[in-house]
């Protein structure tokens, strides 16, 4: 019996939508555009986040040792560094190897090395961190701890600029979240307004329905179905438009740009589903806000 009633309400909701096609189409298009903007932000942040993660994976702390450090002290120092929280691996790079590497990298400027009387480079410990500690606060703390060892002349954690980029990225993320909230609220009010307009245009009909014994639920149910349907359809259309835009962009972008350290990808299915669900919720909420002020006996 309940299934039959649900089918009845769905049928009535679609009949109502068919009778007010224009209003519903405009609402769905507006929701789609809101969802498109929100999901475009989502796509941007998903990919930027991937870039940041791939960059952060390369973050290492280089600990330069004093020249007077004896080779015999090295295993003990390595063990001390390894015992620090957040360190996953420590590799010793002798200054001779470092100079060879430098020469290899600067083949064209080999003349610079010819007059060197002694190796100017220090011995180095290359410290790798466990992934969970690869945020900038922890990197700085670990670097400070390493620098405290008397054998260490100085530390460097390259790509320090990444910290600043991360800060800017987080700021964008905050702004993006705020904008998503604004668009969510806009969708809620658009649906609420549509339902309110429909309700006003049919208030006489609902008055008659109440006189013949219709409950609030009986009158409201099709509106909720309409609101939820508008939300789902608006959400799906918004995501589909974004996907088409994404396909067009990725097929025209030189693959060499991204292939080095990350691959551009579309929104994960879980996020896409989440956006559609939020859109559906916006439809329901708009309906709820609009209808709660009506139908009071």
């Amino acid at each position, binding site marked *: 019996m309940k299934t039959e009633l649900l089918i009845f309400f769905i049928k009535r909701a679609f009949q109502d939508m068919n009778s007010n096609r224009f209003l519903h189409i405009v609402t769905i298009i507006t929701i789609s555009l809101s969802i498109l903007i929100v999901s475009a932000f989502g796509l941007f942040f998903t990919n930027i986040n991937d870039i940041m993660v791939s960059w952060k994976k390369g973050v290492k702390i280089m600990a330069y040792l004093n020249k007077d450090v004896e080779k015999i002290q090295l295993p003990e120092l390595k063990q001390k560094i390894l015992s620090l929280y957040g360190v996953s691996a420590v590799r010793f790079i002798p200054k001779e190897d470092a100079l060879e590497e430098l020469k290899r990298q600067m083949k064209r400027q080999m003349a610079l090395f010819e007059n060197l009387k002694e190796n100017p480079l220090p011995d180095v410990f290359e410290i790798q961190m466990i992934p969970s500690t690869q945020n900038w606060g922890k990197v700085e703390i670990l670097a400070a701890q390493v620098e405290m060892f008397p054998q260490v002349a100085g530390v460097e954690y390259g790509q320090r600029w990444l910290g600043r980029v991360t800060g800017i990225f987080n700021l964008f993320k905050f702004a993006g979240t705020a904008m998503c909230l604004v668009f969510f609220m806009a969708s809620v009010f658009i649906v609420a307004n549509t339902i309110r307009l429909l309700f006003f245009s049919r208030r006489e009909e609902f008055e008659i329905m*109440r006189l013949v*014994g*219709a*409950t609030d639920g*009986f009158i409201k149910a099709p509106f909720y179905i309409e609101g939820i349907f508008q939300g789902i359809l608006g959400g799906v259309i918004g995501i589909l438009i974004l996907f088409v835009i994404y396909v067009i962009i990725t097929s025209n972008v030189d693959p060499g740009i991204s292939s080095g350290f990350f691959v551009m990808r579309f929104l994960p299915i879980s996020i896409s589903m989440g956006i559609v669900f939020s859109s559906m919720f916006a439809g329901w909420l708009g309906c709820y806000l609009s209808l709660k002020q009506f139908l009071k*006996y």
Partner: protein
Amino acid sequence: MMQNTEGSAIIRMFHVHKRFGKKNALTDITLDVERNDLLLVSGPSGAGKSTLLRLLYLGEALSEGQILIDGMNLSRIADSRIPLVRRQFGIIFQDYKLIQTKTVYENIALVLEVKGEKTRFIQKKVTSVLRTVGMEERINSFPPSLSGGEQQRIAVARAVVGDPKIILADEPTGSLDSESAKIIMDLLLGVHARGATVIIATHDKEIIRDTKGKVIYLKDGLMMEPPMIEPLIEKKKTITL
């Protein structure tokens, strides 16, 4: 709470008052309506006839007093139960109150749909009741395409389709010509003959005179003895050329 009060009054009104601001629309009405009664509520315009009916189907709230419908006290009814009370009535209005954007079938079926009846039963019942009011061929018409008399017949069909215990008719013939009014009255009398309690609010003296039923008379919200209604005397019209 519903009670089976077979043989006793189906509607009981005790010292009912209704005020709109400082104006008394009904004053101290005490009245019993027995099962299968045909009650005519008469009186001039503004006497409180429609208000009395609205109090019964909870279209208005009481100011004072009590109303029992089949043992159920309306002054203690929760808002959520108002639809259940209304389903016990079939209501007919002077302005028909049909949904203009729905077909004749949909207008009548609505009464059964709100009760959660099955589609097949609804189809059968609506067709049957339309046959009773002689409107089966207009099943797919929309109200604006019907005459006033036809719309009121649809309103009667809608009122009776749910087999209510009580029919409330508020000036059912008020905006109809005499021929259509007779059809509507015959339909209402037919419903009464099949066992329903029928309450008709009217100021039409012909209906009051021609209908065999109990009559109450309202004036300025007070219930009083009905005035004598003179027998109809046909007067020849003189045309002066």
